[in-house]
Each structure stands twice: as structure tokens, then as C-alpha cells.
């Protein structure tokens, strides 16, 4: 069994998704949560390109990935800007300390 390109890409997708989800599961730091989210989205992007290639419509997969890049950039810019403001206002980036839904 040779290492084909789709197989490598599939391993990459699973690895990125797993890393991102693990980051979101364990972190308490807002910046690290944004980083985890970024890794997760990169995995999704790669999955889109891979799906396009497997379906024989690589251009659709690529344009979907480009769309996700735009949206994803905006998300991270806004999230990081909010993180800066949160740090200034509350003096912490600890998500559990920031939660107001506590009983």
C-alpha cells in the first residue's frame, strides 16, 4: 500500500480536526481557544479541498475553501480584538473566570 495524496490529506484532516478539538476541550485561555478554533477550521478547509478532489470537482472544493478563509479571517480578527478588550476590562483571559452564566 503506497502513500497516495488523498490518503495523506485525509490523515491531515483528521489530525487538524483532532488537534483543534483537543485544544478547545482543554484550554482555559481565550487566545488559545482562538488558536484551537483556527486549527479546527484549517482541518475543515483541507477536508473541503479533499472532497472536491475525490468528487472530481476540485475547483468547487477550492472555491469553498477560499470562502472559508475569508470568513475565518474575519472571525479571528474580531475574536482577537475582543480578547484585547476583555483583557483591558476584566484583567484576565481565563474563560471560567469570565463566565457570567454561573449560578
Amino acid at each position, binding site marked *: 500500500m503506497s502513500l497516495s495524496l488523498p490518503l495523506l490529506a485525509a490523515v491531515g484532516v483528521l489530525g487538524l480536526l483532532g488537534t483543534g*478539538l483537543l485544544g478547545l*476541550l482543554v484550554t482555559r485561555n481565550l487566545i488559545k481557544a482562538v488558536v484551537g478554533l483556527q486549527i479546527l477550521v484549517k482541518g475543515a478547509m483541507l477536508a473541503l479541498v479533499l472532497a472536491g478532489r475525490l468528487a472530481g470537482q476540485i475547483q468547487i472544493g477550492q472555491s469553498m475553501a477560499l470562502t472559508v478563509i475569508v470568513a475565518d479571517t474575519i472571525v479571528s480578527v474580531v475574536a482577537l480584538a475582543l480578547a484585547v478588550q476583555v483583557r483591558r476590562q476584566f484583567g484576565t483571559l481565563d*474563560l*471560567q473566570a469570565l463566565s457570567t*452564566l454561573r*449560578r
Partner: protein
Amino acid sequence: MMTIGTLALLSIGLPWIGAVVVRLIGDRRPAAQHASAVVFALAGAVAAVAMIPQKTDANVLDLPLGSAFGHLTFLPDGLAVFLAVVATVIGSLAVIFSVDYMKGERQLGRYYSYVLFFIGSMVGLVLSSNLLLIFVFWEITALCSYALISFYNDDPKAVAAGIKALIVTQVGGIGLLAGALLLYVYQGSYDVPTFLATASTLPADVLAVMAFGFLVAAAAKSAQFPFQTWLPDAMEAPTPVSALIHAATMVNAGVYLLARFYPAFEAVPHWKLAVVVVGAVTALMAAVMALVSNDLKRVLAYSTVSQLGYMVYAVGTGGIFASQFHLLSHAVFKALLFLSAGAVIHAVHTRDMREMGGLGKQMPVVKVVMIIGGLALAGIPLFFNGFWSKELVLEAGREGGPAWAWAFMVVGAGLTALYTLRFLSMVFYGEPKGHGHVHDAGPAMKIALVPLALGTLTTYLLAGPFGGFLGRALGEGHEVGTTGQVLLGILTAPTTFVALAVVALGLLAWWRRESLSGLARALRGIGTMASNSFGFEAINRGIVSATVASAESLRTTHNGVLNWNVFAILVGLVAVLAILALGGA
């Protein structure tokens, strides 16, 4: 000459346009608001009445609306046009009455716009023949009733009553929605005439679910057992709104739904019996509660619940004509009773009957019309429409329903006579309780009251033409003869004499109430239970507190911690994948 399709759209649309116009006029010009509300309500009534000569048994309007919802179709047959006329004509009289009743109130724009929206939606509900569209109008009427019951939104009781009405009628809405979706799955469209023609081809259990779902919907909307508690609480609304809800719009929708779908559900096992049970239990229970209440509007509310029980009972025994005829009578005399009660309350500024009394001399016009309405409610022969239609209901029940239910209804008729006399004498006779100067009804109030009083004295003369007008909606083999035949049939029916004897007994019981005080003491336990609405309020409170408690305990899962939320997402993902894997195998 306008086509009936245009007229149908106008009778829905004109009140709706009026609702917008009244809002746009703004609360700084109340005179213009009063005038335009009356004009648009009357215009809608004219459009509805103009549909009468053109009624038809085929869909007249077909507005395409994508593939998912089916076409918006309207079917102005006899039954639909009849209810549209009731809604718009009695609705307009309530609007005219409001000109005096709501004089000087704030936020008239909000008041009139919901009233007009309510009337238009009720017309839409009865005219449309697309079940999904019926559901949409059904929910709009629920929303309008909620907004109007809570009109005095600085009064916590009014707000609570509005929310209660909304929640209870939503429960019924679920039944209707479930029925509509099932129909779409098995028939491929929401078309009601197709369903009525081919109902027997549907699987029996599906039909049964639809039938009982619609019964729940109708019971919630028409305040029938076990959903009757919202209607008496709705008395916090301004009195013309009560008249609107009780006589013209809201509560008729449930009876309409049962009558409309009766041909399809007739053969469903136990359905007719269930309808009879709901109607009979409600009629008797509400009559007892009306007997012990001291709030004038609550007495009338319980009497509405009780009379609606008679209509539902009539549908269950197969007497569609009897139920619709009683609906007509009830709409007229109950609007009359409510509006005259509104005039009384407007004059003395209280709803407690113990603080009234001796008002007959000061309010002669109101006294006369309210007694006319009361005698119709009590079923006194011969010149009041309530007598004829109630005897027709009882006769239909004797022929088509179980004997115990018939006995319930006859006893209920006696109680009706008893509580009617009780509230009439508490309000108009006896010693005045000192309200200073009490003024009689204003001119707009009289304009609304007099036609209703005349209607109460005459609508029974329309029995024959009315039966012919309903036509096919009555079902095969239920043709109605001329007015003379119908009235003669009622006069010679054995039920009439039994019922009259019981009514006379009820009147006698009020006459001799002093000597019956021992009996009254013996029955005090029932009276106490009735004032506590037979425990239904406690059940309601229990359901509410259980819901709140379970929601509180579920709140611990909403801890706002990112890691837990991501974990829940992952668990959900695994669950979905597992279901897909198992389902695909």
C-alpha cells in the same frame, strides 16, 4: 359586481388595512381612530355579507406559494360564509360599542389595531381551505386574543390571563399542526376539500390521530373541558373584547373546526363519544361554576363555556345544523349580554354583582336589552332565539347521543335558567347599593345594543333558509326543511317538554330560594368546589411549577464553560455518527 374571490380577500383585507391605518393615525387623534376603526370594521362586514348570495362549494381563489406549503386556497361555502358574517358583523358592533366604552382610554391605536387584526384573521380562518393556512390564521387569532386580554398591561392579573390564554391555546395548536402535517404526509397536499372527499382512503390509525388532535385543538380554542380555565380569566380584558372573543371570533373557531371536519372523522371509533363527553361535562360543570360566581363577567364567561359545551355536544351527536344554529343564536345573545354588561360595568365601575342592584331604574334601555339576552340564554319560550336552538341541540342529542349525556344537558339547561335569573336580579332588582348618579348607556352603545336585541328576537325565524344555506356542510341526509317545519318539529319534540319542565324547575328554585336554603347548605360543598373551579386551577399551577422546576434543574447544564460545551458537541457528533452507522447497516 365583484367576484366572490375578491369579496373574500376584501373581508379579510379591509380589517387588516384598518389595523394599519389606525396605528398610522396615531394616539394623538383619538376621534379619527374611533371613526376609521368603525369604518373599516363595517366595510369588512359589508364584504362578508355580500358573499352570501354567491356562496359556492368550490375553491374560488388559488394563490400559488411555492411547493412546500401548497396553494393558498379559499372556499366560501355556506358554513364558512356564515361564520365570516358572524365574525365581521358582531365584530363591527363590538367596535361601535368601543367608541363609547373606550372613550378617553390611552393607546387606542394598539386596541383597535388588534381588534381589527383579530376580526380579519377569524374571517381568514373560516374561509381558507388549505389546512396549513388554517393553522396560520388559527395562531394569529391566538396571538391577537393574548394581546387584547393583556391590553391593560400595567395590571399583573391581565398580563397573567393573557399569557394563560396564549399557552393553553398553543397546546391546542399543536394538535392542529400535527393533524395538518400528517395530512400532508399521507395526502401530499393540505387541501381540505380533497381530504373531506377521500378521508376514508387514509389509514385508520392516521385518521384517528388527526381526529383526536383536532378535538384537542377545538377544546383548547373553545375553552372546553379540560382546557376551560383560560376563558374566565380572560375577563380582565376590556368588555368589548370579551364580547368579541366570546361571540364573534375566538371560541367559535373550535366549534367550526369540529363541524367542518365532522364528515371525515365521523367513522373514527370513539371519536363521536369523546366529543359528546367533552361537550356534556363542560356544559354541566361550567353551569355550576356560573351559579356560584359573584363577578358579572365571570358568570357570563362560564355561561359561554357552558353554551359552547352544548354546541360541541351537538356536533358529537351528529347534529351539525343544531350546533351551528345554536352558534348563531349564542353569538347574537351573548354579544348582547356582554355589551350590556359592559354598559353596566362602565356605569358603576365594578364587576362585583354584590355591589350592584337596583340599577333597572337608572339604566332602562340596558335593563330591557339585557333581560332579552338573559331570557334567550335561559331558553325561555317562545320569542327568543336561544330557546329554539337549545331545544334543537337537546333533540339532536336525544336521537344521536347516549342517555346519560342527554340527562347532563337537560340538567345544565335548568341550571342555566337558575343562574341567569340570579345575575339579572342581582344587577337590576333589589336595593340600590349607592353609586350616586349612574348614567345610562351612551349613544354608540345603544347603536350596538339595539340591533343585537332585535336579532335575539328574530334570528330563529331564519332556521329554514339558514339550513339550506349551510347546504353540503351538513352532510348527506341532513337536509333541513322550511322554518315552519323546523319550528314545528321543535315544538312537538318530546325533549322540548322535558327541557321546559327542567327550566321551569330552575326558575322555581330561584323564586323559592328562601325555602330551599336548607338544600343550598347541603350542596355547599359542591359550591365551594365550583368556586375553586373543581381543582383545575390547582392542576394548572402544578403543571407550571413542575415545568419551572425542571427548567431550573436543567440550567446546571448551561454552565457557560467552553470546554464542557465542546465536549457536548463531540458527544453529539459521536451519537450522530453512531446512528448513521447503525442505520446504514
